[in-house]
């Protein structure tokens, strides 16, 4: 079932170090597993096991390793060339906006949205068009600043890494900007979505310099992901 790897073992490979694919921990990793299998990339079995302490894993391709990092860090590893490829949410790409990253493929997994939310019923009679500034708790300071600046509003950022929903309740902020999947966490904490900033899915990302200097190897990997996407049903039925 695994695609043969001849396309990457060109003579130039011998002078090269391995390619590294950065994968995000958690939700997206689970969704990406069938795609990886469909693309013929089989990481060591404990890679998909969140309990494993290892961070770097070999794959069945001796020229390709996988690293498992926080989803926000996937973009950074790829932008700085530590990993040549990665899988990462479009929200992370929007936040960091690294010019060194190309996003050649929409993997159509991990769909959710970056939204503005506030305590339910609090917006009555409050017209955002009159605001000069607003205090927002978020893990996306750049996206939040850009979003409100485009509306002529200065966003005072309260930068949190989790439990954003508590911020308006405990009076840290008026609003939150956060990643929303089903919205159940918002509802459970008495918040409601007021605006969608962007809908996001996960992307295959590539380091610009790596693509320019090793177009054959990286191009071949992108092509395998594209093929796996074209046949998602078969990818899921493949034995892991």
């Amino acid at each position: 079932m695994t695609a043969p790897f001849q396309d990457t073992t060109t003579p130039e490979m011998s002078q090269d170090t391995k390619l590294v694919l950065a994968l995000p921990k958690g939700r997206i990793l689970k969704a990406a597993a069938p795609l990886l299998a469909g693309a013929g990339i089989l990481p060591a079995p404990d890679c998909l096991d969140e309990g494993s302490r290892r961070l770097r894993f070999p794959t069945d391709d001796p020229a390709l390793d996988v690293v498992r990092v926080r989803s926000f860090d996937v973009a950074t590893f790829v932008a700085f060339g530590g990993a040549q490829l990665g899988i990462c949410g479009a929200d992370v790409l929007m936040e960091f906006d690294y010019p060194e990253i190309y996003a050649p493929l929409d993997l159509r997994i991990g769909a959710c949205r970056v939204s503005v939310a506030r305590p339910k019923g609090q917006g009555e009679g409050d017209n955002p068009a009159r605001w000069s500034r607003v205090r927002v708790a978020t893990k996306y300071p750049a996206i939040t600043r850009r979003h409100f600046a485009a509306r002529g509003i200065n966003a005072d950022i309260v930068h949190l890494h989790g439990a954003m929903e508590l911020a308006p309740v405990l009076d840290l902020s008026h609003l939150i900007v956060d990643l929303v999947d089903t919205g159940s966490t918002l509802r459970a904490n008495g918040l409601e979505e007021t605006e969608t900033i962007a809908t996001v899915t996960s992307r295959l990302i590539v380091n610009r310099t790596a693509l320019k200097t090793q177009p054959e190897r990286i191009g071949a990997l992108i092509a395998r992901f594209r093929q796996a996407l074209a046949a998602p049903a078969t990818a899921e039925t493949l034995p892991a």
Partner: protein
Amino acid sequence: MTDDPPPNPALLPAGFVDLLPSDAEAEAAGMESLMRVFASHGYSRVKPPLLEFEDTLLSGSGAAVADQAFRLMDPDTRRMMALRPDITPQIARIAATRLADAPRPLRLSYTGLCVQASGGARESDRQISQAGIELIGPDTPEADAEVVALGAEALAALGVPGVSFDLTMPPLAPALIAEVGFTPAERQALMRALDRKDAAAVAKLAGGLAPVLTELLHAAGPAERALSVLGGLVLPAPVRVLSERLAATFAAIKARVPDIRVTIDPVEFRGLHYHTGVCVTVYARGQHEELGRGGRYVSNNDEPACGLTLRPEALLRAAPARAGRVRVFLPVGSDPALGRRLRAEGYATVDGLVPVADSRAEAKRLECDMIVAGDGVVALT
């Protein structure tokens, strides 16, 4: 009230570094080899100043780098001056003014320091060196090829391994997009998506152009393949002209340097924003940064020009380390004629200034590799 601790005297402003022995020497030697290659091909050296009036430095082709310039006020004239963020616009100014009557093609080379307000996301250096060439006058594939070939020769002189040249045609994507009536906002969003090779956004924003643009996005790679994809597409006439020039430049480069490694990225338009034709970015396998960048632009006085600017800091990270001079310790009282002979042979001599009991230990303390013995030298072990 509490005070912050005093700053450490070694701390420099972000983006500035001290180059210490061996690194500073390697940089000077590397720069010299680059300039020797440029000079050997008839590129005459010029040396523009560090500071210029803002309105001349940052006009014309300099406008593209205006946001990167440090500015200060001339206390004398009260006019704003700018520290050069890039030397190419200065060469364009010289070619159009003081050297306006010099015969064309005009071949100039230069090296010097630049200061940029901020590097890229990856590049934290704010003081950077540039070493480059400009070929002013002709607008032909052969001129493009001369510049690239000379760049390849200069990199070979430094021994940089695995060099590749990425050719782009920055006006191509805008010309393709101009054929369709996008609003300025749509156009901006699409250009941004193309810049990031964000295939999903391109597919969403490009409308009828999506299939062509997507194909071009995926065509980036080895030159022959990219050109065959370009050749197979139905393109509007103005775009076809650009694509044919790209192919002609590639052919001219290959004719000069048959074993050169070239990739082509047809939709990329990134770089110094003044470029108007075929552009080139220099990479080396295993290096995470660009080693240089160049391309065709319109010089002041609307004169065609093509140049290449190498980044010596990046080159030296990519090039194999060179052995510096061997240091020989000359204890007090050594024969001055011996010192002269050793220096003529390429050694660095380090004179003892006071008599010491153990000359070998003193030589080691001063980081020498050798010490004089009789009328020759011996290695310190």
